[in-house]
């Protein structure tokens, strides 16, 4: 167990499980979601719901009800939430007028000026942050760090205070209104314990969702990124892989083909508790100021 105040709230942290007090923890496990091979089949969404017995959708959740259409391409799940732990985003992009690369093409009866259209699909999930704001702010200890370095809610402890909800810089965790408690991806904690991979990774037909020791996944991702760059996909980028980012790196990271915000991800999230020492300092000074102010109001005798 290592404890270093500098890395307790932000910054790179080699061993989150150890820092949380686990001894002899297994290697940190996580997800690498390579969106370049995602086909938008939503098998992950379904597998997650089935394995974890997640209800179809919560009332008032971002998700539309069964049968409703969002108008957002093929995405009728809309976003992560208390009852949506995997969410496949669909982005339809119209590119600049095509450059003739001399590639064979199928005539499509389209106008000459027609632009190329491309799909971006990406399966989003809880990031299992190295410095997880949700976990930091949880007043009951319901959210905890597992021996695998993941972040899990204990539903028998959560009292539905809702603090984790606005604390998450990715907008992942949410309260299920009909239940009153907070829910999010557990990275299939029950399956991990049994040596199984999470349901979504298991179901993914293209290996867009890969599960494994985070170190190995990071190496895989670097290779894949270099490959895509070689092929001229300059906008391809890793997201959440960097231990020096604002959350100390994500346990679930991504390969994206465009800027993160295009997929609904914050471009440069920072764990809010990074600034907490400063906040407490300001609050303590101000609290002292309140006492001084009240005392000052009594100075000068006149009733």
């Amino acid at each position: 167990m290592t404890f270093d105040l500098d890395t307790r709230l932000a910054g790179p942290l080699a061993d989150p499980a150890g820092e949380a007090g686990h001894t002899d923890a297994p290697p940190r496990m996580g997800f690498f979601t390579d969106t370049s091979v995602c086909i938008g089949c939503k098998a992950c969404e379904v597998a997650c719901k089935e394995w974890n017995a997640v209800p179809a959708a919560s009332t008032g959740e971002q998700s539309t009800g069964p049968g409703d259409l969002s108008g957002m391409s093929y995405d009728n799940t809309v976003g992560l939430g208390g009852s949506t732990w995997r969410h496949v985003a669909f982005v339809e992009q119209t590119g600049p007028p095509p450059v003739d690369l001399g590639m064979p093409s199928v005539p499509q009866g389209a106008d000459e000026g027609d632009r190329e259209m491309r799909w971006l699909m990406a399966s989003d999930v809880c990031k299992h942050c190295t410095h997880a704001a949700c976990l930091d702010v949880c007043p009951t200890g319901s959210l905890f760090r597992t021996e695998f370095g993941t972040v899990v809610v204990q539903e028998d402890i959560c009292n539905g205070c809702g603090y984790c909800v606005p604390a998450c810089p990715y907008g992942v965790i949410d309260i299920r209104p009909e239940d009153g408690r907070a829910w999010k991806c557990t990275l299939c904690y029950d399956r991990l314990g049994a040596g199984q991979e999470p349901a979504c990774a298991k179901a993914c037909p293209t290996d867009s969702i890969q599960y494994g020791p985070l170190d190995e996944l990071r190496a895989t991702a670097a290779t894949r990124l270099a490959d895509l760059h070689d092929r001229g996909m300059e906008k391809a980028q890793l997201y959440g892989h960097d231990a020096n980012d604002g959350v100390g790196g994500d346990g679930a990271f991504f390969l994206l083909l465009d800027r993160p915000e295009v997929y609904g991800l914050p471009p440069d999230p920072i764990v809010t508790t990074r600034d907490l020492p400063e906040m407490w300092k300001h609050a303590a000074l101000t609290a002292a100021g309140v006492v001084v102010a009240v005392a000052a109001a009594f100075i000068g005798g006149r009733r």
Partner: protein
Amino acid sequence: MSRREKLAVPPATVEPAPDFDSYYGRPILKQPTWKVPDVPLYLFSGGLAGASAVLAELAAATGRPALSRVARFGAAGGALAGTGLLIHDLGRPTRFLHMLRVIKPTSPLSIGTWILSPFSALSLAAAASTLTGIAPVLGRVAGVGAAALGGPMTTYTAVLLTNTAIPAWHDAHREMPIVFAGSALAAAGGLAMVGSPTGENTPAVRLGILGAAVELTAAAVLRRRLGFIGEHYHTGRAGAWMRGARALSAAGILGGLLGHRVRGMSAAAGAALLAGSVATRFGVFEAGRASAADPRDVIVPQRARLAARADNSTPLASTPPSSTPPASTPPASPPLAAAPPAS
């Protein structure tokens, strides 16, 4: 057939062309699930209670029994209301005590509960003693204990809100404790103006005026310093609450200055200060909700931060044509460029 039609995919929504990319304009952050009016009133009650507890003990120590009495009731009432509202806001109210199974310095709600719980017990004991006349010494001791927690009671709620990812709250983490402290002083002074005779109300009037002035000034600084994110304090519901708060606080200040020797005027001014404090809490809360719903608040500053970092980093990173030549740029240690120490 109609089923089929229903499944037909509608055309992708045409986005207005904003100055940033987003996913169909969806918010990035989740809205706080905290309820209105529970949580704004909880913020108000805690502030009122905390400042009142300090006021009560100093009033008692300086021989102002009537002032002390009303302030003690304010402290106990505020604490009781605050605790009740907090519990009512939980998704699982019966599990309130789960808050007390841990003490987490990283959770302002945990620390806050550990401030609020003893404060409530002590201020209730003090008020009960005042009310019944039983065990005045113990009552006094309890009152002093509550007063010791009074300062923190007025500001921990500011940390509670600012320690979130919501830009209109988080980015205001320097000013928010001052806004809340001012609001608390205005409320405590206001309540004491309502409830104490003119013979004893000088400290209450001073406090109310000072508090409201601090509240107004700090809120103005906060809005200005937040830049475009501060707009959420001007517009919509939050804007209406904040305008109301300004009007009420200003009226309270004026009434306190002019009419503190007249019982009716003083009470009316006190009520205005109380109402101004309430309105501020609602305004701040609504501004946070609006900010959470606005993807721009998250994306634009973060994008700018990345761009600034890329500018400061190696010349290999995409250099906008306008940037200064890399040679003149000091390699200020941007987090991304710093090599991680091989530990």
